[in-house]
Structure formats: C-alpha cells, structure tokens
C-alpha cells in the first residue's frame, strides 16, 4: 500500500510540476468545447441565395419577402440576366438561385399553375437537401395563404381536409445540433486525455530508463500498474467534471439524468481507455511511437463511434466492427443521460457491452504489460 501511495504521489508531482500539462488538462477542453460545440453543426443556416424576378409584381415580391424574414436564407442579390445566374453558383457566391418566371402573378390570378425554378449547388448534398426542405416549407406556407385569402374560393374548398404533419422533436425540440454534439465532445476529450496520458506516461519512463530503475526495486508489477492507473483515472474523472462545468457555463446544457450514473458509466469507459493506453505502451519504445499508435487508435474509435457518421449508414461489416468500440457505447450513454435523463435500467445493454470490452481490453493489456516487464 505504501509503495502504491508513493507511486501515485510521484505521478501527481510530475503532472502538476509541468505547467504546460496543467494547461493541457484544463484549457484544452475549454477551447475544444467552446469551438467545436459551436463549429460542428449539422444545422444549415445562412444559405446564400440569388433571385431573378422576371415578373416584378406584388405577388412575386410577396413571395421573395418570405425569404427575407427567414434566418435560414441570406439574399445576396438580384440578377437580371438569366445566363449569368450560373456564374453565381460556379463562383460559390450563392448556393441557390431562384427564378420567378414572367406571368407568375397572372398564372396565380388566372388559377393556372405557376412554376418557379430552383438552381441548387449540389456539391454538399446534405446542405442542398436541407435547403430544399426549407424552400418547400416556405412555398407550402405561401400557397396556404393564397388559398385562405382568395376571395373567389368557396368556404367548402377552403376547408377541404388537408392532412398536415405537425412534428414535435422530443429531447431536442429545436433540433439543435449543439445538444447532440456536445456530449460527444466530452466523450472525445475523456478518450484523448486518458489514452494519451497513460500510454505516454508509461513509455516516457521506458524512454528515460526509470522503468528499469523501478524494476530493480522490490515493488511488484501489479503495484506499478495500479500506481499508474489511479492518477490517470482521477485525472480522467476530474477532466469530465471540468468539461461538464464548461458545457453548462458556455451552452447552458446541464445533465438531465443522474450525475452519479454518468460518473459511474464514465469510470467504466476509462477502464477501456486505460487498458488501451497500457497496451500501446507495451508495443512502443519511444513516446513518438506511442503518440502515433495512440493517434491511430483514436481516429478509428472516433470515426467508428457514430459521432460524425451514423453507424446505420455504414456497411454491415463495419457496423459489426463498431460493436467492439467502447466509445460507441459511451457516446450513446452520455447522450442518453445528458439529454433524456435515461435511467440505468434502459442503459444496461450498452453498459454491459462497454464494460465487457473495456475489462477484456484492460486485463489483456495488463497481462501483456506484466509479461513484458518479466
């Protein structure tokens, strides 16, 4: 016990002796949460739009004004020459061009079918689809108003039973991607900090030769492992609490569910990252190697976690591979607890999967570490 205590004490002394380390631990998550939380967004806003109004009537102006008042669109100008419209899309000055044909008003009044033309920059398929959805919505509302205000339509026609969908988005009513992204960022920070600290922390001792010096003391290898794990787990837990504090301060997003449950799940997750860190330390001799290998694993766990790319969109083989990724479960768990306040009972499958893989990884790594030490 005494030896473990001094190993832990030494580790903390080393970590906090180095001011840059303290900065990494506290400032980096702050910046990451602030910048990534705002930057990573699937919302499509400020779609740049150029109009060509060939009609120039009250009706066409009324139609255009609906785009002025929408926060999703930003009208960058009007173009008289049809042939020049494409240059707006080519140069990226606009990602959307709307052409209102001549006789737009006449067609409406005469109850003919008026057409409008949309030219959409389809390079970013996702944004294009989303903006199309917004436009359809605006056109539909415009149409409804036309029908309601039309003096010559009978009441009967006006009250024709139209089916309307009225969606309600639960847990994230405004479909803000922030709410979805931020818990994911917390998970990433925890992964990065614990994985890198552990692997680099052990390899560093290998590199400067102190590991050999520790080996000739009477301490046992399990004591050495515990002496490494305790400080890094404590830092990991500290890190997650700091991150949650920042998330609350910056975005006003608090934990809906149980905080102890969240911390418990986090500690299960840390077991897997520590295990991976120890494993990396057994296959690398220098900090540089450890850094590269840790990066490799980190990129894989992030891309295969469902954080950026929905797992359901992946090929079936890859989907099965993601099952081995503890981060996949942890992100789900974190989002569930954060946004929905899900109880432990409903998280049992994810928790079990995460704990199983985490513990397997951990014990395999520790066995390898002990064998390596000889």
């Amino acid at each position, binding site marked *: 016990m005494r030896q473990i205590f001094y190993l832990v004490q030494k580790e903390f*002394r080393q970590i906090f*002796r*180095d001011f840059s380390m303290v900065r990494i631990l506290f400032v980096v998550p702050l910046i990451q949460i602030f910048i990534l939380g705002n930057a990573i967004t699937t919302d499509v806003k400020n779609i740049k739009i150029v109009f060509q109004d060939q009609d120039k009537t009250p009706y066409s102006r009324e139609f255009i004004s609906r785009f002025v008042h929408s926060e999703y669109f930003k009208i960058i100008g009007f173009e008289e020459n049809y042939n020049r419209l494409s240059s707006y899309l080519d140069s990226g000055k606009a990602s959307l061009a709307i052409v209102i044909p001549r006789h737009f008003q006449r067609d409406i009044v005469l109850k003919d079918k008026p057409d409008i033309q949309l030219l959409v920059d389809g390079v970013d398929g996702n944004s294009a689809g989303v903006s199309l959805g917004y436009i359809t919505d605006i056109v539909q509302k415009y149409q409804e108003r036309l029908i309601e205000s039309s003096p010559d339509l009978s009441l009967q026609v006006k009250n024709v039973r139209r089916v309307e969908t009225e969606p309600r988005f639960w847990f994230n009513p405004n479909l803000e991607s922030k709410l979805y992204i931020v818990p994911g960022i917390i998970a990433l920070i925890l992964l990065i900090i614990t994985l890198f600290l552990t692997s680099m922390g052990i390899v560093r001792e290998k590199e*400067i030769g102190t590991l*050999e*010096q520790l080996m*000739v003391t*009477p301490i046992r290898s399990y004591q050495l492992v515990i002496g490494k794990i305790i400080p890094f787990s404590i830092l990991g837990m500290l890190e997650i609490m700091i991150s949650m504090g920042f998330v609350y301060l910056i975005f006003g997003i608090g934990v809906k569910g149980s905080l102890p449950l969240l911390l418990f799940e986090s500690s299960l997750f840390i077991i897997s990252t520590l295990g991976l860190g120890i494993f990396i330390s057994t296959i690398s001799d220098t900090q540089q190697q450890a850094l590269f290998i840790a990066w490799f694993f980190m990129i894989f766990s992030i891309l295969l976690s469902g954080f950026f790319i929905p797992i359901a969109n992946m090929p079936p083989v890859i989907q099965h591979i993601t099952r081995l990724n503890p981060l996949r479960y942890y992100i789900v768990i974190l989002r569930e607890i954060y946004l929905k306040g899900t109880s432990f009972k409903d998280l049992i499958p994810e928790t079990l999967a995460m704990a199983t893989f985490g513990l397997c990884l951990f014990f395999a790594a520790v066995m390898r570490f002990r064998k390596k030490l000889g």
Partner: protein
Amino acid sequence: MQPVISVINFSKSFGKTTAVKNLTFDVEKGELFGLIGPDGAGKTTTIRTLVTLISPDSGEISVTGLNVSKSIRAIRSITGYMPQRFSLYPDLSVRQNLNFFANLFEVPKKEIAERRKRLFKFSNLEPFSERLAGQLSGGMKQKLALSCTLIHNPVVLFLDEPTTGVDPVSRSEFWEILRELKKEGVTILVSTPYMDEALLCDRIAIMHEGSVLAMGKPEKITGLMRNHIYKITGNDLVLRSDVFAQIPEIISVQSFGDSLHLTFPPGFSDEDVRIKIYGLIGQELNVERIAPSLEDVFIGLVEGKIGHAN
C-alpha cells in the same frame, strides 16, 4: 567463505547474437570487482542478469547465495543497481527522488531523513536538495543516481559504466566514494571501459566478446605481458605505424596519441630496437622501453599476442 557473487558457466544469447559465453567468476565480500572491456563485451548483460532484470540461458548464478532466477525479490531488496544511463526522474527534485526510492525500497519512515543526511555527506548534494534532478550537472546526476541506489543500504552494489561521460574531477570523486563504501563492507561490481579505472579495482576480469580473457589483480594482469614494449616518440612524419609494421620480428604496433608502442618478443634489447629502426628509416628516434599498461595487455590479449612464456 561463500562468495557474495558467484557466476558459473553463464551464457546468454539474444536471438543469434551471443552476448555472454561460459562466463565464470566470483566476487568476495567487501571486494571491489571490475568488469573491463569495450562496448559489446557482455558487461551490461552480465550485470543485468545479476540484478534479475534478464534471466540466464544457462549457468549457475547467485547473489549472496540466492539464485537469480528464483529469489528475484529477495535479491532486489538487498542489491543496488545503477544502470548505464542516468535514470531518475528529471522533473522531481533531488530530495523527492531520494524519498521516492526510499519508500519503494520500504526504508523505515523514521530512518529516511537520517539516511538522506548521510548520503548528502559524501555526495555534497545537500545545497541542491530542492533542485530538479534534470538540472544537475553530469557529475552531480551520477552522484544522485548512486545515492538513490544506496538509500536502502544494499549489501551488494552493481554499477554499469557509472562514469561514462562524466568529467575527470567528478570521476575521481566518484571512485573516492566507492572506496568509502568498500570500507563499510559493501561488495561492489563495477563495469568500465576505462583502463585507468580498472587499476582502482581489487580484482578485474577483462572481457571481450562475451568471454573472460584474463582475471585477477590489475598488477598481475599487467604482468601477463612477456613481450617487450617500446615507446617511440619523435618526428610526426615518421610516426606512421605501417612503416614499423615492416620489421619482421615486430608483434604489433599501436598508436597512443603522440607516440607509438611497438611490441617485440622477449629478448629484444633497447639497442636491438634502435638499430632496427635506424635501419628502416635512417633516422635516430627516441626509443624507451616501458612497462606494459593495461591497454597494452588488453590489446595483446584480444589479438592473442601477449607472448606467454610457456
């Protein structure tokens, strides 16, 4: 009395490379024993095996009667090992490093301060106790490393090239400390590539390519050399070893800085040598017969040219 370190027929290979081959030696209690040899001679492998960091392929190896493959923890708690590279925590202070190792070796808490004081006395590190180990000079680092290996009062001390890369003043101070420890009854095994340090040992083993070429007191080893060695100094232009190598009877020519050491078989007199050289280059050079140094013996041993009487 049983030797403190006993190595019998020890062999160790790493893959296809044989590091140590059939090594046998003993070290008595309180002895200062030196493993002398160039890089790759097998010194480090031998020491690392003795401190239980690697296991032998074959052979009987024991430290204070304990088998190195079986009593690993027991050996670790009574031995001190200072590896070739300085390996203490550069980001901990001198005092923190000492305390850390004291605690890992389970030195009784009450004794730590007292032992630290005693170690400071010989190392003169007291004024630097709050300085980070990484900011010490090379010689001070070496002394701190030694202090950390002594904190648990080991009965056997293993030092792997402790003075490599250390300035001459610190080197002699370091050896002074070793002699002090020897007086206290500590058995010391030290490896070094420096022949002058070998002379400071009680006994030495000259190692080359994993085997011992000669073992015994340093004086005895220099006495192994039966050939005569002549030192010549003079005009730089003629100090070219290939010219002297043309003398038919010559055994070897070694360049030592500004002089050459010529080895002739026993029976060659100064006069004979002078005549030979004059005949060769038509010039009078400063020729002087010298007692063989350990270097001469070492080179002679490696090349199999020491001119055994028998």
